[in-house]
């Protein structure tokens, strides 16, 4: 295929030494059963690799200041010797991965082994099944479209709109590509027919009719049907998680704005699975780089450097969770359990500690199991299904909580249930509050009502105000957000220019509140 590397100063290609290493490592990886598409390694100097990293791995993105901000940060970190980027690979076909030109040979081999793990994961994990593998072209296309809009409308105007879209970039429905949320038209019709007013009447002879179909019953049925129709008249008829998509379809925008919003949305969906599988993806790649490096690749002279590097990658910072570390350890834990037959009813039913400690049926299913896990799971189900009490204890996991008096985080609990609950909560929301569109004709004025399903954590109000303002501007009319603050139902309003808050139970706000409810 045509090579996409036109953006580099000159394509240097890989030196022969590295080409040979690539062929060799590719062979080893296939030998272990990893399945991956063609993988292209590009040599970059550190400025190029920093640029690629700030562009999310892609050589071309639409013009925006935040890439520049990220680049400066990485550039300075590298310059002052604080941080350095080792590996980067993008989910495309063929997959592109980048090698830093002044890394040692050992580093390059390690990166290659790690990259093959990632590419295998991209290719086989179900959550990536719907991602666009031609994203390299699409990103370039997006860049061209945004540039064209900037030429026509002015850079400031378009950039301001991009900033507005980015502020709601996280309001997407990560499960959308995998399921159908909306019922088709014919299904709707069928259901409507079933609920038609005549439906409730049972066939009966006329002299039996008032016994079989008593008028009160019919009246009740009619009433119910009316209510149902009224509910259906609400739009949307059920809450919509994909706020970006909803705005795109129903918001009042000019064509170029719609185009920009669609670009932001499609990129957000492209990156979503990577957020959903962070622990697994890094764990899987680390599992394979250690396996391949220690069994097949390392020479004696490279062992120390390798250990130094590897321990840096999986190092735990006190009190923080490293996805590389948790991922690789959990994969090893699963492999060990299935190798020793520590699963199924017998294992679950056994409560003799001594028997459990020495449990080994010689099942030898570990490798098969982890391959299966990498195909079907995401981080939430991975933790939900495989996090065990033993694992939490061995790894020393704990939950933390904010100590208001001390002004820092403190260890809260080492109890298995609490740790698991906390991890699942964090992974399920990924820091994004669950916010849905609940009414697009609020107050019969075509205003947008969003609802935050409060899960015990309050929103940060100053940012919520700004974000709601952006939504109102994109929507074209006022926007409202129903949430909970300090345990009280609170509605935030923004009409694009001014912001007001209604707190339930607050004296004086009662009248306004009632108007809201009616």
């Amino acid at each position, binding site marked *: 295929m045509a090579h996409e590397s036109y953006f580099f100063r000159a394509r240097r290609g890989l030196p022969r030494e590295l080409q040979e290493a690539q062929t060799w490592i590719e062979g080893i990886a296939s030998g272990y059963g990893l399945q991956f598409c063609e993988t292209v390694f590009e040599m970059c100097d550190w400025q190029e690799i920093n*640029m690629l990293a700030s562009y999310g791995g892609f050589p071309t993105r639409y013009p925006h*200041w935040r890439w520049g*901000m990220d680049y*400066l940060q990485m550039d300075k970190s590298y310059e002052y010797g604080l941080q350095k980027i080792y590996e980067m*690979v993008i989910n495309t076909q063929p997959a592109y991965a980048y090698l830093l030109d002044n890394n040692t040979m050992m580093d390059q081999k390690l990166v290659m082994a790690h990259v093959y793990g990632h590419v295998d994961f991209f290719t086989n994990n179900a959550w990536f099944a719907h991602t666009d593998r031609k994203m390299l072209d699409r990103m370039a296309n997006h860049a061209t479209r945004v540039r064209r809009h900037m030429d026509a409308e002015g850079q400031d105007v378009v950039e301001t709109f991009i900033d507005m879209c980015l502020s709601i970039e996280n309001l997407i429905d990560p499960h959308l590509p995998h399921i159908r949320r909306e019922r088709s038209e014919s299904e709707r019709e069928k259901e409507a027919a079933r609920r038609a007013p005549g439906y409730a009447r049972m066939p009966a002879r006329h002299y039996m009719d008032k016994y079989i179909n008593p008028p009160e019953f019919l009246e009740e049925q009619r009433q119910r049907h009316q209510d149902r129709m009224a509910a259906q008249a609400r739009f949307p008829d059920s809450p919509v998680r994909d706020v970006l998509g909803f705005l795109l379809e129903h918001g009042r925008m000019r064509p170029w704005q719609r185009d920009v919003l669609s670009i932001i949305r499609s990129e957000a969906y492209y990156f979503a699975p990577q957020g959903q599988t962070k622990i697994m993806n890094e764990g899987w790649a680390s599992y394979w780089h250690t396996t391949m490096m220690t069994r097949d690749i390392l020479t004696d002279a490279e062992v120390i450097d390798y250990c130094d590097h590897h321990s840096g990658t999986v190092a735990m910072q*006190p*009190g923080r969770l490293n996805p590389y570390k*948790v991922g690789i350890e959990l994969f090893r834990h699963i492999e060990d359990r299935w190798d020793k037959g520590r699963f199924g009813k017998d294992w679950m039913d056994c409560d003799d500690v001594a028997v459990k400690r020495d449990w080994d049926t010689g099942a030898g299913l570990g490798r098969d199991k982890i391959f299966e896990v990498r195909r079907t799971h995401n981080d939430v189900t991975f933790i939900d299904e495989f996090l065990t009490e033993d694992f939490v204890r061995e790894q020393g996991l704990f939950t933390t909580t904010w100590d208001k008096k001390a002004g820092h985080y403190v260890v809260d609990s080492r109890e298995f249930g609490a740790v698991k609950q906390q991890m699942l909560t964090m992974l399920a929301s990924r820091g994004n509050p669950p916010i849905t569109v609940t009414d697009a004709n609020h107050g019969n004025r075509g205003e947008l009502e969003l609802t935050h399903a409060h899960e015990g*954590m309050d929103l940060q109000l100053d940012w919520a105000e700004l974000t709601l303002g952006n939504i109102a501007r994109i929507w074209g009319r006022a926007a409202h957000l129903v949430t909970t603050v300090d345990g009280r139902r609170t509605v935030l309003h923004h009409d694009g220019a001014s912001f007001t808050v209604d707190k339930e139970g607050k004296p004086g706000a009662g009248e306004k509140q009632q108007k809201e409810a009616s």
Partner: protein
Amino acid sequence: MPLNIDNDVHRFRTIVKGRVRKDLRRFMQSGELLGRQGDRIVSIPLPRIGIPRFRYGDNEQGGVGQGDGQPGDAADGQPGDGQGQAGEQPGQHVLEAEVTLEELAEIMGEELALPRIEPKGHKHISSERDKYTGISRVGPEGLRHTRRTFREALKRQIASGTWDAGRPRIVPVREDKRYRSWKTKSEPQSSAVILYMMDVSGSMGREQKEIVRLEAFWIDTWLQHNYDNVQARFIIHDAKAREVDRDTFFRTKESGGTLISSAYELAWRIIEADYPPDEWNIYPFHFSDGDNWSKADTKKCLTMLQERFLPACNQFSYAQVDSDYGSGQFYEDLSGSFSGDERLALSRVPDRDHIMDSIKELLGTGR
């Protein structure tokens, strides 16, 4: 050939400087580059602009950590925010560099584009030091350079043919002897004293103190970088002023009214006693919320500044930290009376995010 990213970098810089899209500047935060300096972690200032989103308030959510510790023990670090992108996201390796104070100062100077300070003319005292730098043929025996002496003797014996490799005996004579010689160097020595004054009256809260502490750290770092010998003295004041040590300075919470002149008087007594202005570079820094007790006292302060401090000091700096109670009137008074006078640097610090801007205002003149 330039990289694509250069345009975006340029765009970001223009926004930060406030040339375009001024609305964005209010989202600016100071950056997060962390370096270690000894035991403490210091952050290196890099501007960042945040894009507002729906998100949970800080510290609302707990986290999960890994490592030692009993319930109730402090857990370092932030809880994972669960964000981030796998695979595609670069694998970053934290190198945890030790940054020396010296390097920090350079980094800061570079980021804020601070000019190097020119020490005041004629105000360095010179100190004399002897340094052994050379070799001479004459000198006291105590300074004889044995190796050189024997080398000369060996040279002479080989040249004159008296050297016997079978019986290697070297006998130096008077001409062979070499002695160390020294030169007396006079080194200019520039010394500076920083006088920190802080208003600890009731209206200065915890956050205001923290701002002063952070700002003072950077000022210290920068001045240390520019002078060989920097001393710091600390004065706190409400209606009365007293000198304290560094620790007390940053911790004290008092209450009561404010007489700024009390601090100025004490500072002047310290200068007169210990730091003659023709030998020292003097940098008074005064932090306050700008609420002085009376107009008469303010007037007294202005006179003192005009007649004593400004002629004697390199620069007198006044930083006003916004507080809920302070009127901020003192800033107005100063800027009204001394507008355009380079010897007086004024700055306002509404919140933490403006510390870097403020440092630039105070130290940006390179005096």
